């Protein structure tokens, strides 16, 4: 990937800021998401809650299914490939996906190596639990980061934990003396230049969204107040009682995340939220995949 192409890919993520990216499994759901104000959709065959329920190996979606969604909406369409599965990523690039999510939601294809994302022209978003993971993914060529959270649970605790961790590590790094950054680079296992960037700019060099467990407008507002630049909502919308209304409410909550009166109004009568699973009840921790 040329330097200019990487810059254009980071810039697309900048355009998504302040928005909600929704998981959809059919063209109909994609249209509902677009009409509700989603700034992008994530096309996948099964949403994380169902992947969790079904068990077994979970892979990239059928390209025909993804194309159906690309044809149904005018907003950017993202899709997931397995961690380390560069052939799946090549296929997604061939169908001109707007963003690839190298995602721990699917079964990892490689337990050592992530995809060398610099070899691709299309942009990648990757999950991270802490600053080291985020910068390692950026070093591999990711042009957008999201918290891992814990997908398919409707439990926001891990997204909160990951966002707080990344923000506090950024704050700590920023307060370091310049001559300490070399040691930080060693400790975080990331290139010095990225450490220096975070130190000087007090932020990641790419956009950082919240993901994994967001189910209500209040969850979305919480993540935005903790420093997320936008929100992914996976199972939270189409596993709830009234997807259309909930989707619209979450979109508005991300725009006015610091206005409690508006959030109160938005949170009224949304119908049933997804049932969810508490983190202690989960057998499979997806956030532990890919470090």
């Amino acid at each position: 990937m040329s330097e200019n192409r990487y810059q254009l890919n980071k810039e697309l993520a900048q355009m998504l800021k302040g928005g909600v990216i929704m998981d959809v499994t059919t063209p109909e759901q994609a249209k509902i998401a677009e009409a509700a104000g989603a700034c992008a959709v994530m096309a996948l065959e099964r949403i994380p809650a169902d992947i969790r329920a079904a068990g077994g190996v979970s892979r990239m979606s059928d390209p025909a299914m993804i194309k159906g969604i690309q044809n149904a909406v005018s907003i950017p369409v993202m899709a997931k490939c397995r961690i380390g599965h560069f052939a799946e990523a090549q296929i997604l690039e061939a169908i001109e996906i707007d963003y690839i999510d190298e995602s721990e939601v699917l079964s990892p294809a490689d337990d050592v190596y992530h995809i060398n994302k610099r070899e691709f022209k299309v942009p990648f978003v990757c999950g991270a639990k802490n600053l080291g993971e985020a910068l390692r993914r950026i070093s591999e060529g990711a042009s957008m980061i999201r918290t891992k959270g814990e997908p398919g649970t409707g439990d926001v605790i891990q997204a909160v934990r990951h966002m707080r961790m990344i923000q506090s590590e950024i704050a700590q790094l920023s307060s370091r003396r310049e001559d300490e950054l070399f040691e930080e680079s060693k400790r975080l296992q990331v290139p010095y230049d990225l450490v220096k960037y975070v130190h000087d700019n007090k932020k990641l060099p790419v956009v950082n969204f919240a993901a994994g467990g967001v189910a209500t407008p209040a969850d979305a507002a919480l993540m935005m107040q903790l420093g997320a630049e936008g929100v992914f909502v996976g199972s939270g919308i189409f596993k709830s009682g009234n997807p259309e209304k909930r989707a619209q409410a979450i979109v508005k909550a991300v725009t006015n995340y610091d206005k409690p009166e508006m959030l109160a109004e938005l949170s009224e009568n949304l119908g049933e939220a997804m049932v969810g699973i508490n983190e202690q009840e989960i057998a499979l921790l997806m956030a532990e995949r890919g470090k």
Partner: protein
Amino acid sequence: MVGILAVQGAFIEHAHCLERLDCEYKFLRNRADITADIDRLILTGGESTTQRKLLKELDMLYPLKNLISDGIPVMGTCAGLILLAQKISGEEEPVFASLPVEVCRNAYGRQLGSFSASGDINGIRDFPMRFIRAPFVKKTLSDEVEILNVTDEKITAVRYKNQLGFAFHPELTDDLRLHEMYLSL
């Protein structure tokens, strides 16, 4: 006071440009933010469908439309240009419909079609232009629309009275000349 539409998209980038020019601004995120001291408007990059939806739902569409027709200086970049256009190809309803042009959304295709270029804009030489899933102006609908830039045979910058529309993102570069031009309107 410049009002920057901040319902979704790259509004902070515009704010940083204005800060560097020592210009006061305010983010507009709901109707209550549209106060009487707003005498300029910037419509930012982002997803126009999302912005359109939020403008309606948050009751901001008509107050802002009125300000534009009152003649306050407006700059729309990318999605902002789409919001201003009188006609959007393939779509039934325009948004502010104040700028007599027809625009095509995602006119260069998906993200793989995003590109950068350099061009002259109304006497400003070699301006760096970032096109991100960009629209272009398919045609102008009034003789009073000034064409400020054509890149690869496509109109990418226009001016009509108080309104400036750019298909690209001056806010993504360090070059402040277009923001200066806007502030001189």
